[in-house]
């Protein structure tokens, strides 16, 4: 058991008894320092992922194949920004400022989901991201809606409600392309081939090797293991792929009638490690884009403050 020496053992026992009873922890409640730290790490990573996740999809807004698809993609990317803000707001209740969290992202100190370091090469990638990436996110976020920290759970409930539209629109794009010309079919199959394994990696390391899992499970931050969630995602997704005549690039995939699981082949964890340590196909590009957006937006932040100061001065004058 890893317990910070600063934590009062009596309070810790009370805290764990509360979790045992299934109670929710709120911002002003006592919590072990490690619980707070783990939540800040996990929630900020999640918020950063929403924000960085806007980039691969934003890449296709100007090239969406129809006005309908463009409206949908704009709305989806705006949602992702909103989701980032919900989670930043939840993270701030743990006593850390958003400014500091953003700083950690921009300096590379904080991580974000490995999936967003892959490129969106064709329009089919937008469909596959909605279907697989958002589909995987929904499986994870549905579990997190029952997390022990109240503000995180509430943000997840809000996000899950909106995320279903993301998945549906993605699956619709894939369905249309799968029923399209041979070239469209080939394009969507190619996108599935590229995104399948990175989507499975989104659930994080396997249970035996996940550095944080045991503690997060004990404190009910996570309610299920990475492997259990990954299996649920595969079980949900394979019938969806079959329904539209697409395959996943896994020669070992087979259905186990006894366990009712779709068993899948080995994940290339070396690739996962390379991507989360900064050497994925787009890590540098993503960070450069975030920093540029932050720097280019500085004048807006300054102008808003100047405007507010002027307004405040004016209303003081009127009052005098």
């Amino acid at each position: 058991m890893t317990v910070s020496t600063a934590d009062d053992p009596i309070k810790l026992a009370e805290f764990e008894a509360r979790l045992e009873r299934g109670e929710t922890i709120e911002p002003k409640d006592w919590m072990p320092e490690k619980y707070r730290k783990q939540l800040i790490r996990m929630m900020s990573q999640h918020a950063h992922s929403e924000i960085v996740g806007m980039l691969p999809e934003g890449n296709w807004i100007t090239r969406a194949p129809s006005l309908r698809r463009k409206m949908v993609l704009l709305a989806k990317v705006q949602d992702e920004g909103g989701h980032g803000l919900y989670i930043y707001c939840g993270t701030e209740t743990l006593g850390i400022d958003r400014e500091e969290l953003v700083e950690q992202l921009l300096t590379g100190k904080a991580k974000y989901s490995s999936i967003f370091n892959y490129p969106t090469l064709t329009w089919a990638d937008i469909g596959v991201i909605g279907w697989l990436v958002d589909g995987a996110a929904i499986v994870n976020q549905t579990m997190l809606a029952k997390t022990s920290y109240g503000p995180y759970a509430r943000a997840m409930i809000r996000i899950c409600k909106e995320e279903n539209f993301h998945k549906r629109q993605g699956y619709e794009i894939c369905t249309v392309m799968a029923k399209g010309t041979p070239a469209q079919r080939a394009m969507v199959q190619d996108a599935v081939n590229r995104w399948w394994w990175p989507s499975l990696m989104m659930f994080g390391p396997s249970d035996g090797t996940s550095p944080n899992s045991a503690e997060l499970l004990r404190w009910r931050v996570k309610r299920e293991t990475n492997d259990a969630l990954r299996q649920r995602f595969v079980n949900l997704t394979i019938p969806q792929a079959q329904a539209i005549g697409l395959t996943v690039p896994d020669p070992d995939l087979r259905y186990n009638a006894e366990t009712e699981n779709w068993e899948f082949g080995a994940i290339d964890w070396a690739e996962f490690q390379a991507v989360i340590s900064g050497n994925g196909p787009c890590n540098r590009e993503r960070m450069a884009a975030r920093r540029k957006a932050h720097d280019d937006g500085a004048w807006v932040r300054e102008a808003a403050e100047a405007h507010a100061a002027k307004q405040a001065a004016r209303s003081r004058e009127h009052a005098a």
Partner: protein
Amino acid sequence: MSSETQWPLWEVFTQEGDAAPHEHAGSVHAVDAEHAMQNARDVYARRGKVVSLWVVPTASITASSPGDAGPLFDPGSDKAYRHPQFYKSPRGVKIF
């Protein structure tokens, strides 16, 4: 300028439909009330349901603390006579 991204914090309350209560939705950073209202609209009212928004400076909220919960709320939980189930009525009589 004083800060990069750390405008003051505002708590947002949304009313989802006529006759519903305003409920806490989350928070936004904004320079003033008007700006907070715009940000709250963009962040917490992107879907149709919201009909009204409140924004309140977070610093203006006084909240009870978990440590006081016992003495603060006990008087509400030990008075069974404040509940209809406390009272007996003759069998067969329709009270409501």
